[in-house]
């Protein structure tokens, strides 16, 4: 327990395009880099080829997985966030522009599984692989286990999407202490070093989602007034526009249909993304792609053309912004500061639009872009992690009061929706409703819970169907069942019920419309843990074999060194024996045995290493300049391998 209390709580931005992990280093949030030194881990997961020896293929995440996109596109998945908490039909529609597809035998009502090579994964499992990579990066950085995290989600994520994210955390071996809304996290990061009061709007256009949140800052309390957004709008849509144009033009001008070549589509997508990024700083960008038939597709896109192309995409952010202001009861002039978050806000046209929406330049103001828009959400997640850990003075006075983005309702007779918790209610929020029976002796009552703003149940998102069971037999209308709906601080719904006349706690059977059951999640944890063990031991084995190869190569070169002749025959035999032993053990998958053999060979060659060093030093003394001698020493005095460093006394 004491150990757990000291452990670091990390903040994770699980993004559509990139993911990051950060923590509070004293009083400031810091992003933790990966082994490659990069702060961003691309949210790409690849399945390596099936090993020749059989067994399960390993899973890679990040930059290495991204490289596989072009070579083995059928074994790679990206932008999985767009699939989180969605049903089979939605995923089917979504996947039209992606190279991966649903597993064949999926039925409506099931949690969709994506076919990846010969395996299939649910979206939360894919996200779990990304989270596990971030967890490992953090563990490598701290040299200690990391088990608790705050994970960010788009503010406009519904219950199913939030639950799916939490499930992913659990599968990755992380206790998710809190889900934080991304724009709110950004506000925390910005609010940290400026003890400001006032009203701020956070405009967050990321890879796949758009959020707008309006917050009031006062005495360290960040109180969200309203939020709105579109979980289906982001940089991906811009990429897809450019991609579609290129695919059409290539088809029309060169007669090549690239859509049937997933690898080529991915190469083109990469070119489209590069062009988009260049267009943020340059007046034009060029496509120059070699086609399979040897032709070249060359195309220049001026920024003006690009801007009119993406105008309809950007315009879709205006509605949510206006609605959020209306819900908060605020006019644009009453917004003191606007913060831009998400990589897509680097696009000048997005900045212009934000400026217009909030009348900024008219008021002599500029949107805030000081913090890196790719990192600010992760930094904010770290701040929230600090608040939860309660160990930092900086975050001691800070408190985040967030809201639920969507209204919660119950289906009534006739298919209309009765709202029981309004959108933009501060969470945790609750509502208590009373239900009764319509038939004498009725023992069950079914309740259909929905999320959304529309009048008809059919137009809202179905959250779950609750079956109240075991109602004591009574005349119709007599039972009085009290049902309590509670949205927790993560924005996730909990339901409890009680029959008031009998005082009996009614039994509730929850059938989530989308999402995994507890048991399924549990199984996926074990699964991914098994894989994790497997992956981890594979990694260890590969590392041990590489190490063995390095020392064997050095020992192989040893007889060419004059110092070799200074060894006794006995010593030479001992080295040869240790060498042969390692050569043999290296073939087995026994990591411990390989390591032992490496140590043994290292010991056997220690005297030789000393002799070699002496020889080098004495040759330096024989009339050479110190500089030359130094170079020669450096070259010749390398120990047989990295782990037996030469020592100068």
């Amino acid at each position: 327990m004491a150990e757990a209390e000291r452990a670091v709580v990390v903040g994770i931005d699980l993004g559509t395009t990139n993911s990051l992990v950060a923590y509070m280093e004293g009083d400031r949030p810091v992003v933790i880099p990966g082994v490659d030194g990069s702060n961003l881990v691309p949210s790409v997961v690849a399945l390596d080829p099936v090993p020749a020896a059989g067994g399960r293929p390993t899973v890679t995440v990040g930059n290495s997985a991204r490289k596989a996109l072009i070579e083995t596109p059928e074994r790679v998945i990206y932008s999985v966030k767009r699939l989180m908490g969605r049903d089979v039909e939605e995923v089917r529609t979504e996947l039209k522009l992606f190279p991966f597809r649903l597993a064949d035998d999926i039925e409506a009502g099931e949690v969709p599984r994506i076919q990846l090579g010969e395996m299939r994964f649910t979206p939360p499992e894919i996200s779990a692989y990304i989270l596990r990579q971030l967890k490992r990066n953090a563990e490598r950085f701290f040299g200690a286990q990391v088990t608790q995290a705050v994970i960010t989600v788009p503010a406009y994520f519904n219950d199913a999407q939030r639950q799916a994210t939490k499930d992913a955390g659990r599968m990755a071996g992380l206790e998710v202490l809190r889900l934080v809304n991304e724009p709110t996290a950004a506000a925390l990061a910005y609010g940290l070093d400026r003890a400001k009061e006032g009203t701020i709007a956070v405009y967050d256009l990321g890879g796949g989602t758009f959020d707008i949140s309006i917050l009031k800052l006062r005495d360290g309390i960040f109180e969200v007034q309203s939020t709105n957004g579109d979980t289906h709008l982001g940089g991906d849509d811009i990429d897809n526009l450019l991609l579609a144009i290129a695919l059409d033009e290539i088809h029309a001008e060169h007669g090549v249909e690239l859509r049937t070549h997933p690898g080529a589509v991915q190469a083109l997508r990469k070119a489209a993304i590069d062009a988009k990024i260049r267009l943020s700083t340059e007046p034009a960008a060029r496509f120059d792609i070699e086609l399979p038939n040897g032709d070249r597709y060359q195309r220049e896109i001026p920024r003006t053309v690009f801007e009119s192309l993406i105008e309809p995409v950007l315009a879709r952010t205006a509605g949510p912004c206006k609605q959020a202001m209306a819900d908060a009861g605020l006019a644009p002039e009453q917004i003191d500061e606007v913060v831009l978050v998400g990589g897509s806000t680097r696009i000048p046209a997005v900045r212009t639009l934000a400026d217009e929406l909030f009348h900024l330049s008219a008021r002599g103001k500029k949107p805030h872009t000081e913090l890196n828009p790719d990192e600010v959400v992760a930094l904010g997640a770290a701040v929230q992690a600090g608040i939860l850990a309660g160990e930092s003075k900086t975050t001691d006075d800070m408190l985040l009061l967030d809201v639920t983005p969507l209204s919660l309702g119950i289906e009534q007779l006739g298919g209309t929706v009765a709202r029981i918790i309004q959108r933009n209610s501060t969470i945790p929020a609750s509502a208590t409703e009373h239900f009764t029976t319509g038939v004498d002796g009725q023992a069950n009552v079914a309740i259909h819970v929905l999320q959304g703003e529309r009048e008809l149940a059919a137009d809202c998102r179905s959250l779950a169907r609750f079956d109240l069971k075991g109602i004591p037999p009574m005349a119709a209308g007599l039972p009085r069942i009290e049902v309590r709906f509670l949205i927790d601080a993560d924005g996730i719904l909990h339901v409890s019920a009680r029959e008031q006349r009998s005082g009996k706690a009614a039994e509730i059977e929850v059938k989530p419309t989308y999402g995994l059951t507890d048991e399924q999640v549990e199984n996926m944890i074990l699964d991914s843990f098994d894989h994790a063990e497997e992956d981890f031991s594979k990694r260890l084995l590969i590392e041990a074999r590489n190490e063995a190869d390095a020392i064997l190569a050095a020992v192989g070169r040893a007889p060419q060194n004059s110092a070799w002749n200074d060894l006794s025959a006995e010593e030479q035999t001992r080295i040869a024996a240790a060498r042969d032993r390692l050569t043999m053990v290296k073939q087995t998958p026994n990591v411990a045995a390989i390591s032992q053999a490496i140590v043994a060979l290292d010991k056997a060659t220690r005297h030789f290493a000393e002799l070699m060093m002496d020889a080098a030093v004495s040759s330096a003394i024989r009339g050479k300049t110190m500089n030359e001698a130094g170079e020669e020493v450096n070259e010749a005095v390398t120990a047989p391998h990295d782990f037996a460093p030469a020592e100068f006394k």
Partner: protein
Amino acid sequence: MLKVIENAVPVACWSCSVAHNESTLFCPDCSKIQPPTGGDFFSIFGLEHRLNIDLSALEQEFHRLSRRLHPDRFTRASENEKEWSLADTALLNDAYRTLRDPLRRTEYLLKLEGGELGATAAGDKDRENIARVPADLLEEVFDFNMQLEEMRMSKKMGQEDLELKESLRLAMDKFKGMVDAVDRDLRAHWTVWDAGDAVARHPAQRAMVALLDQRRYLSNLVRDVTEILGD
């Protein structure tokens, strides 16, 4: 700080065993959170049942209590404490949302105090929208609804009847004015109610129920016309 209910039974703190008042959120002795006792929206703020409320004091108290009760403060606490913090914070948020809004506050209090009378006004009817048409508005509302329908039709046909639009705009302004008048009336009754005289309270309560009904009806009209004129 916390409201003391006179006939409350003292209970022992689960943590330090010191007896305290039943309705206490935190043990006065060891400051640990206590099991929720299910008070009403006024009691969690330590307020009397009154309709005139100091909103800035309410906000301050909301922030002060949030800082202590919010689940963020209980990440490392026991499962029980976590659960209580969640329940208390939900109640606090529900209470703040209701009390800071003059209409919701009035409806809530009438329901709390008025039994059946208030329940028909503020309870289930709210979502069924069966508010009665105020008698003196009957004819006007009839005409207005005709115009709304006409407007919808012409919009569907892609036409724009400017005269009709103007007439609807006038109607909207009129209804908005009536909403404001209802609000003024309501506030006058608040003061009567808050004075606490039992004889004066009853008619004030009845009047408020009627006014709330009227207001609900009027705001629905305003909402409908805003919707059609809006886009």
